[in-house]
């Protein structure tokens, strides 16, 4: 069994405990977020898109996922 343990992450300031994802790619898929339009930061470091597949999330990581919104 792969998913015996769920990590506790902080995503955009909110606690998230029941996620199965272990990589950024999986996290975005699980959250149904189009990776083409976002940028991701883990513990204040920006993760490059080419690294989404193999960047492994760790318990307690703080993840920020941002996109573009209306602004002036």
């Amino acid at each position, binding site marked *: 069994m792969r998913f015996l343990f769920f990590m506790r992450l902080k*995503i*955009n*300031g*909110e606690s*998230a405990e029941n996620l199965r994802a272990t990589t950024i790619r999986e996290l975005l898929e699980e*959250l*149904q*977020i189009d990776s*083409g*339009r*976002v*940028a*991701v*930061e883990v513990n*204040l470091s*920006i*993760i*490059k*898109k080419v690294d989404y597949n193999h960047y492994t999330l760790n318990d307690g990581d703080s993840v*920020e*996922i*941002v*996109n*573009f*919104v*209306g*602004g*002036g």
Partner: protein
Amino acid sequence: MDDRLIISGIEFLSRLWVGTGKYRDFEETRTAIEASGADVVTVAVRRVNITDTKKENLLDYIDPKKYKILPNTAGCYTVEDALRYSRLARESGISDLIKLEVIGDEKTLFPDTLGLLKATEILAKEGFVVLPYTNDDPVMARRLEDAGAAAIMPLGAPIGSGLGIRNPYNIKIILETVKLPVIVDAGVGTASDAAIAMELGCDAVLLNTAIAGAKDPIAMASAMKHAVIAGRLSYRAGRIPRKLYATASSPIEGIL
């Protein structure tokens, strides 16, 4: 007549640049931007709503293939924050442009020009096309140019104030001081304000609230489009000097 606007090798098709904030909905945003004829739109960098990711996104309405996306660092009060937002914006893979804001005061949203200068220097070295939102201060404009800015974006008046170009003489001096394109950013309230900025010789005008906050944003978008074109043509045509007394337009000769 060749009158193209080129910044850091990027050709811009319009001299009116518009923001995407404060519209009622995305449909209105799209229609207004279309009516404005702008090919540059500013956007803000914010957290994705992870509880409802099915919600529509601005970029569903503003196609990045059709428009140049100019992310801003609005809401950043420190150099560190401005750098963070800029780098995140670039990592989205949609744009290398950055409308750099380092805000110094909540009430006026005037820029913290010392922080702005520092952030400009760092981001320019990282290869960003840095477009700093700054005061109408010619000395700071020169400093920003030296620091590697791609254009200078002085305010006409405080953001969202609609007070127009409060110090046209300083804008004029900035135009004479720097070699970079000068884009008036903020303060425009109505079409004549945009025309005044362009008649001064500015290379473009960037505005948001004047359109989004108008009673009829679509009509105002169209008014702004024409004002910017008229102002630019007027600048290039060369206005007559101001004189105190009249000069008759009809001939004296042949008067009965």
